[in-house]
């Protein structure tokens, strides 16, 4: 029994090495970072919204939507903004904004100045909901299907190319299905 106890460290270590060996020789590409949330249900959240009502994951149900994290202090968000406007006005895609670590007055000024592509804007002043979605910065965009599952995660500002070749085909497919 006593001997067994003293052999425990080396036994654990052998398991560890076997595991490292498998990791080493499996030959998979560790650089592919899929968003862990893709094909998962939308994290539940409840935020006050800019129009003094509320925004929660229930508002997204039953339609194909985009959830876009942005902030007034974020310059790439300004760059992305015209694309979102086009999506909302020409393609009629429902977009819900979440203002990440932003003050209400600043968010108001942002959409007043540039126009709002958003159906509703949730105010995530503490950045809590951002954590739930696992974002690493702003802007980031999620495509959510009718059942409320996340289907795509864009971890950077959208580009016109992505819009045409990936995002819109996906939205149309989800809307049909």
């Amino acid at each position, binding site marked *: 029994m006593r001997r067994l106890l003293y052999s425990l460290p080396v036994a654990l270590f052998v398991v560890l090495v076997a595991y490292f060996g498998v990791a*080493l020789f499996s030959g998979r590409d560790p650089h592919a970072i899929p968003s862990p949330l893709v094909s998962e249900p939308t994290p539940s959240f409840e935020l006050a919204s800019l129009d003094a009502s509320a925004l929660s994951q229930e508002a997204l149900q039953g339609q194909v939507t985009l959830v876009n994290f942005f902030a007034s202090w974020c310059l790439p968000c300004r760059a992305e903004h015209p694309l979102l406007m086009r999506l909302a006005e020409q393609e009629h895609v429902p977009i819900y904004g979440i203002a990440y670590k932003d003050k209400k007055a600043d968010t108001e000024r942002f959409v007043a100045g540039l126009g709002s592509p958003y159906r509703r804007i949730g105010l995530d002043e503490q950045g809590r909901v951002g954590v739930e979605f696992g974002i690493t910065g702003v802007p980031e965009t999620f495509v959510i299907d009718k059942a409320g599952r996340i289907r795509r995660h864009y971890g950077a500002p959208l580009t016109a190319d992505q819009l045409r070749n990936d995002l819109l085909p996906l939205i149309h497919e989800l809307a049909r299905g």
Partner: protein
Amino acid sequence: MIAELGHFALILALLLALLQATVPLLGAARRDLGWMALSRRTALGQLVLVSFAFAALIHAYVTSDFSVANVFENSHSAKPLLYKVTGAWGNHEGSMVLWVFILALCGAAVAGFGGNLPAELRARVLAVQGMIGSGFLLFILLTSDPFQRLMPAPFDGRGLNPVLQDPGLAFHPPFLYLGYVGFSVAFSFAVAALIEGRVDAAWARWVRPWTLAAWCALTIGIAMGSWWAYYTLGWGGWWFWDPVENASLMPWLVGTALLHSAIVVEKREALKTWTVLLAILTFSLSLIGTFLVRSGVLTSVHAFAVDPARGTFILLLLFVVIGGSLSLYAVRAPRLRGGGLFAPISREGALVLNNLLLTTAAATVFLGTLYPLFSEELGGPKLSVGFPFFDRTFAPLMVPLLMAVAVGPLLAWKRGDLLGALQRLWLAFAAVAVVILFGVYLARGGPVLAVFGLALAAWVFMGAVLEWMERVKLGRAPMSESWRRARHLPRAAHGMTLAHLGLAVTLAGIAASAWQEERIEIVHPGQDLAIAGYTLHLDEVAQVAGANFTADRARITVTKAGKTIAEMHPEKRFFPLQQMPTSVTAIHSNLLADLYVALGDSDGAGGWTIRAYWKPLVPWIWMGAVFMALGGLLSLSDRRWRIGIAVRVPRGARVAGVGD
């Protein structure tokens, strides 16, 4: 030519290391003094050879010899001299040379200062060091040759990653490596003791200074890394539970446990097998830390995929070093005889608790670091483990540890009086009560846990102070008597007090960060940004040029209640060679709080994103770490390590008792 000589020196060092790994070991088994004595000369010879190779590499960097592939890939002629030198270890191959250089330094130190060690123990310790050295020199020569030539030589180099061009980071790796590699000595002592089958008080007394020295260096190294992250990354965080950080924290935690358990072996001859295991684990974790993280096994397996030869070698090396020593442990440790018995409530008991909590904490960090890969390997989702996991597992383990820190030193050896110890801590209880009342008053509805953390810091702080006061009878005896006692108190005791005070200071800094304020806004020159009672006035943003970068530098005047307090200059640098921006934050500190300002992007219409933070007590985090390291150094200067009193009694011989 010099590069070739450097390469040649490494080959010779490998041959010497192989010699050192075998002959003294055989000599110790055969009791052949000549064979054993070889170890000292080979250890010194290795230092000379590896120093030469290291100097040759630095020479190639300083003279910008781009015919050396490593220099071409990591340096540039326009780089400031400091970063040419430090760039030598800012890459995989160079850092490996630094690693074996420090290993050679440790080996030579054992050979040089180990005059009071019994010849057999010294020969075995140095032989184990030789084995480690052989492994790593072979690794360098076979897979990571820093002296490889390029033909034809390029005109100029690719430059060092701008993020690494920073004084804080330039000296962070040497300290970290001093810590990691320094633990190799404790490891070698442990393996030598297993081979000999003997662990006693004298052994612990020899191991402890080495552990202490490595621990001090690692403490400073970790603190420097965290300080660097704090002031360069631009969002004011100082610890991210990133795999690379965790890799340095694990050996620190287990090394701290080792530091404490070695005391029990030294004073009471108990916990022997446990201490030996800790010595092996500390260095094993250092190895895993340096290599698995560097090669990317923990963050990603990418580096392994790029160079499978390197990855395979590392794995093999880890397998031999760690697997070999743990197997030896499994076979030999059961034969080590246990020593003194003690009651659960005693100094030993408190140190066991310390050890259990520290190693469990290290285990949770280990699990949190590796779990994402375990999960993926077993077909689970790709995930990352961050603050929520560590907040819920690591923090609760630290709470009882910190509570015990104040009590432990007040308990007697063998059997302690917990009630008595707590009674003597009544002032600490009072301090806790004051902090809680004050904190609740200040933070009504605010972060409760932070108040608790501050109270805990006060508890640890007062505990350390009271224990010290008691030792010197401050206030209970005439001042002259206290002074006399303070002078005669071993420096190790002063060192412990200082290190525990440092722990309290760091803890206070961590707890108080919950009260930080944060502002991120677009500001136009001439406008103000208000934070925590300060007004930040953006005067202008100007273009300036540096040696190998251009920068946008803001001038911000800070006023409080109408009085100008400081002028701050956050910068956004751009390195054209690498096409890479870095930020240089401006920090105004009054040691009680930091005002932290980072300059972001321009909005193209004259406005600039400014991130401003007010961070109470944050400088204390690093101040505390410095206290801890100073405490360790003070303890290291203790008389009983400096003077060779500890003479091991030869087997069978009878010698009068020795002590200090």
